[in-house]
C-alpha cells in the first residue's frame, strides 16, 4: 500500500491534490454557513423576492439558451455545409461578438435606444415617433444571445466538421429525405456540442452582473449583490448562492441523465462532408449571418468609436495607461498560474484511469460552473479565515500589522480568477495531451528522462498550440470579467472592465467608450490570433497527411 502511494506521489499529483483542496474548502464554506439562523433580511427576501428571482432567472436562461443554441447552430451549419463568397472571413469573424462583454453591449444599446440616442433620433428624423425600449427582459435576452452565441457556434462548428459523411450517406441510401437526415442524424450527432455550448451560455448568463444590474432584470446574481451590498447581509447572499449552485448542478445533472447510454461518436475514420453551393432560396443565409455580426460587433463598436469623438481630453491619459497595464498584467499573471496548474492537472490525469482521478479533476474544474457572485463570496470568506489563521505570523513579521492582509490584497482576486477559469485552461490542455497520446512521454521515461525534463523537452513543445489556445481563451475571459473583480478588488484598484462599469452606471458613456474600445480591441486581437493559429495548425496537419 505504502509502496503504491509512494510511486504515485510526484509533483503532478501533489499539485493536483492541493489545487483540488483549495477549491473544495471555500465552496464547502458556503454550505456550512447555511446552518446559520435566518436573518430578518432573509425572511424578507424569501417571502417577497425569492419567487421573482427564480422566475426571472428561469425565463432569462430559457430564452437565452433557446435563441443562442438556434443561432449558434444555424451559423455553424451554414459555415460548414455551404460554400459561398466570404465564407472563410465570416467563419472566424462570427466569433468576434465574444470580444464584446455583454455589459458593454447593454450600455451601448441602452444608450442608442434612449430618447437622445442614435436609433430614436433616426426614427424621429423619418417622422416616426416610436421608441424602442431595450432595457427589459426581452432586451436582456437579445443582448445575451448576441454576445454568447459564439460559444455554441464554435463547439457545433467543430463537431459538424468532424461528422463523418458516411452517416449522412448511409441515411440517404436508406431512403431518408434531406429533412429526415437533418433531424434524425445531423442534429442528434451534434447534440453533445450543442448542449455543451448552450451550457456555457447558461453559465455565462447566470454569471453576469453588469447587464442585469443596468437593465434592472432581477435575477439571482443581481439578488446576491443586492443582499450583500444593499441589505448588508452576507448570510442571505450565501443562501441565495447555494440555491443558484443547486440550479446549476441540477441543469448539468439533467443533461447527463437525458443522455443515458447513448454515444455520439463511434469510429475515428472520418470522411468530412463536402460543402455545397447555396441554392437561390438559400442565398439569404450569409446575409443573415452578416447581420448577426453587424448587431453583435460592428454596430456597438461603431457607436463606441462615435462616442470617442466627444471624449477629447479623456483620451489616452496616464490614468488610462495605468488601467490598461492593470488589466493586462493581472490577466497575464492569472493566466500564467492557470496554465501551469492546468499542465500539472493534465499530467495527473495521464496514465491509468481511476475513479479517484476522474472525480478529483471534476472538482478542480468546478469553478466555471459557479457564478462569479457566488465564487466571490466563497473566496472572500476563505481569505478572511486565512487572515485569522496567519495573524500570529503577520504579527511576528510586523508587530504593527492589521488583522486583514491577504484579503485586502490583489492575491484574493487572482485566486478567484484561478478558481473560476481553471476549467477553461484545463480542458484545452487536456485535449492537446489527448491528441499526442502517451507514447512519446513513455519513450522519454524509458530513456531515463526525469518527469520535469520530459515535460519541458517533450510534452510542452508537442502541445504548444494547445497551450497558446488555453492561454488566449483564459486571458480573454479574465480581461472581460466583471462580478468577481468588482467584489474582490482592493480599494481604488480598477481594471478596464470595472471602470467601464463605473462610468456606465453613472451614465457617463462617453468616458466609458475608450476603456471599452481598448478592452474590445485587445480581446478581438486575441480572437484573431486564436483562430488563425488554429487554421495554420490545421493546414500543417493536412500537409503532413
Amino acid at each position: 500500500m505504502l509502496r503504491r502511494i509512494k510511486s504515485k506521489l510526484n509533483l503532478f499529483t501533489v499539485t493536483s491534490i492541493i489545487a483540488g483542496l483549495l477549491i473544495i474548502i471555500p465552496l464547502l464554506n458556503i454550505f456550512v454557513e447555511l446552518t446559520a439562523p435566518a436573518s430578518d433580511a432573509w425572511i424578507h427576501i424569501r417571502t417577497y423576492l425569492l419567487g421573482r428571482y427564480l422566475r426571472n432567472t428561469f425565463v432569462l436562461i430559457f430564452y437565452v439558451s433557446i435563441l443562442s443554441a438556434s443561432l449558434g447552430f444555424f451559423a455553424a451549419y451554414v459555415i460548414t455545409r455551404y460554400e459561398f463568397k466570404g465564407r472563410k472571413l465570416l467563419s472566424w469573424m462570427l466569433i468576434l461578438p465574444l470580444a464584446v462583454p455583454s455589459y458593454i453591449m447593454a450600455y451601448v444599446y441602452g444608450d442608442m435606444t434612449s430618447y437622445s440616442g442614435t436609433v430614436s433620433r433616426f426614427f424621429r428624423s423619418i417622422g416616426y415617433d416610436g421608441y424602442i425600449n431595450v432595457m427589459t427582459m426581452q432586451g436582456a435576452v437579445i443582448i445575451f444571445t448576441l454576445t454568447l452565441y459564439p460559444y455554441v457556434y464554435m463547439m457545433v462548428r467543430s463537431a459538424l466538421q468532424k461528422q463523418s459523411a458516411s452517416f449522412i450517406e448511409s441515411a440517404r441510401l436508406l431512403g431518408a429525405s434531406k429533412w429526415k437526415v437533418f433531424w434524425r442524424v445531423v442534429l442528434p450527432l451534434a447534440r453533445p456540442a450543442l448542449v455543451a455550448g448552450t451550457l456555457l451560455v447558461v453559465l455565462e448568463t447566470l454569471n453576469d452582473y453588469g447587464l442585469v444590474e443596468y437593465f434592472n432584470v432581477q435575477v439571482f446574481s443581481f439578488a446576491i449583490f443586492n443582499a450583500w451590498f444593499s441589505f448588508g447581509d452576507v448570510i442571505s447572499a450565501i443562501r441565495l448562492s447555494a440555491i443558484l449552485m443547486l440550479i446549476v448542478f441540477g441543469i448539468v445533472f439533467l443533461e447527463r441523465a437525458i443522455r443515458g447510454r447513448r454515444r455520439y461518436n463511434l469510429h475515428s475514420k472520418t470522411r468530412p462532408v463536402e460543402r455545397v453551393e447555396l441554392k437561390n432560396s438559400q442565398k439569404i443565409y450569409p446575409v443573415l449571418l452578416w447581420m448577426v455580426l453587424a448587431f453583435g460587433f460592428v454596430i456597438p463598436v461603431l457607436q463606441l468609436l462615435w462616442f470617442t469623438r466627444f471624449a477629447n481630453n479623456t483620451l489616452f491619459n496616464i490614468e488610462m495607461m495605468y488601467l490598461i497595464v492593470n488589466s493586462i498584467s493581472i490577466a497575464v499573471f492569472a493566466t500564467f498560474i492557470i496554465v501551469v496548474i492546468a499542465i500539472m492537472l493534465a499530467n495527473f490525469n495521464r496514465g491509468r484511469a481511476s475513479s479517484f482521478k476522474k472525480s478529483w479533476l471534476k472538482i478542480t474544474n468546478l469553478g466555471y460552473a459557479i457564478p462569479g457572485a457566488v465564487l466571490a463570496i466563497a473566496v472572500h470568506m476563505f481569505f478572511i479565515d486565512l487572515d485569522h489563521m496567519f495573524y500570529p505570523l503577520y504579527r511576528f513579521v510586523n508587530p504593527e500589522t492589521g488583522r486583514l492582509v491577504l484579503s485586502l490584497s490583489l492575491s484574493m482576486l487572482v485566486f478567484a480568477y484561478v478558481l473560476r477559469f481553471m476549467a477553461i485552461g484545463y480542458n484545452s490542455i487536456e485535449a492537446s495531451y489527448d491528441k499526442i497520446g502517451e507514447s512519446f512521454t513513455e519513450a522519454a521515461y524509458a530513456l531515463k528522462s526525469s518527469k520535469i525534463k520530459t515535460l519541458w523537452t517533450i510534452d510542452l513543445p508537442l502541445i504548444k498550440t494547445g497551450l497558446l489556445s488555453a492561454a488566449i481563451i483564459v486571458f480573454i475571459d479574465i480581461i472581460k470579467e466583471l462580478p468577481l473583480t468588482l467584489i474582490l478588488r482592493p480599494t481604488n484598484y480598477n481594471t478596464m472592465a470595472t471602470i467601464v462599469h463605473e462610468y456606465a452606471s453613472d451614465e457617463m458613456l462617453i468616458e466609458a467608450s475608450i476603456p471599452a474600445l481598448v478592452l474590445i480591441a485587445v480581446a478581438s486581437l486575441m480572437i484573431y490570433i486564436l483562430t488563425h493559429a488554429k487554421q495554420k495548425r490545421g493546414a500543417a496537419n493536412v500537409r503532413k497527411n
Partner: protein
Amino acid sequence: MYVKIESLQFGYVKDEQVINDVSLSMKEGEIVAILGSSGSGKSTLLRILSGLEMPNKGEIVINEETLCATQVYIEAEKREVGMVFQDYALFPHMNVEKNIAFGLSRLPKSCRKARVKEMLELVSMEEKIDAYPHELSGGQQQRIALARALAPKPSILLLDEPFSNLDTDLKLKIRQELKMIIKKTHMTSIFVTHDYEDAHDIADRIIYLENGRIVDEIVMEHNQQNTQ
C-alpha cells in the same frame, strides 16, 4: 440481365478519369467481387452505383429500372440500393432496433417491428435489439449494418470493403456468415475488396479493376456450384 452498367465514366476533377469506360452485367442473385489495389476506383464505382456520385457518362439499369442515363438521374435516397459501409456507419445515438428501422419509415409500425425482428433473426442477433452500437463488437456491428441495409428489401446490395475492420480469425468466420446470409436472401450483391481471399471465398465472379478500367474477369465455379 438484372444489372446492366454501360460505358460508365467518372472523374472528381476534369481530365482525370477515376472510372474509365466500365461496363458490367449481372444476373439476379449473383455476387460479384470487385478486386483492385487502393486508388483503382473500386469504392468510387460503388458510390456511383448507389447514387452518391453522379457519373459524367454512362448508363445504369437495375431490375429494369433506369437509374442513370443521358436524361435520367435518380437520387441516392430514391434508388432502393442497400449499402454496407467500410466503417459500417451505424448511427451511434440509436440502438440496434432504431438503426434497422431507420429505412422502414414507409411501413406501418407493426410491420416495421416484424421486419426488424425478421432481420435480427437472419443475422442471429435477436438478443441485441436494445444495444447501442458502441456496446457491440466489430463483427456484431457488421451484422447489424448488413441487417439495416437488407431491411428495406433493396434491389441490390453494395458492400464497401466489408472485412477491412476485422482481425484475421474473425474475418474467416464472418466471411462464411455473410456469404450464407446473402445467398439465403438471394440478394444480388457487389462487394469491393483488395483481398483476393475474400473474393475467392464469396464471389460468383471476380472483376479486376485497375486505374478505373476492368482488366480481367474470373468466374468462380466452386461458389456458383455451392449455391445451385
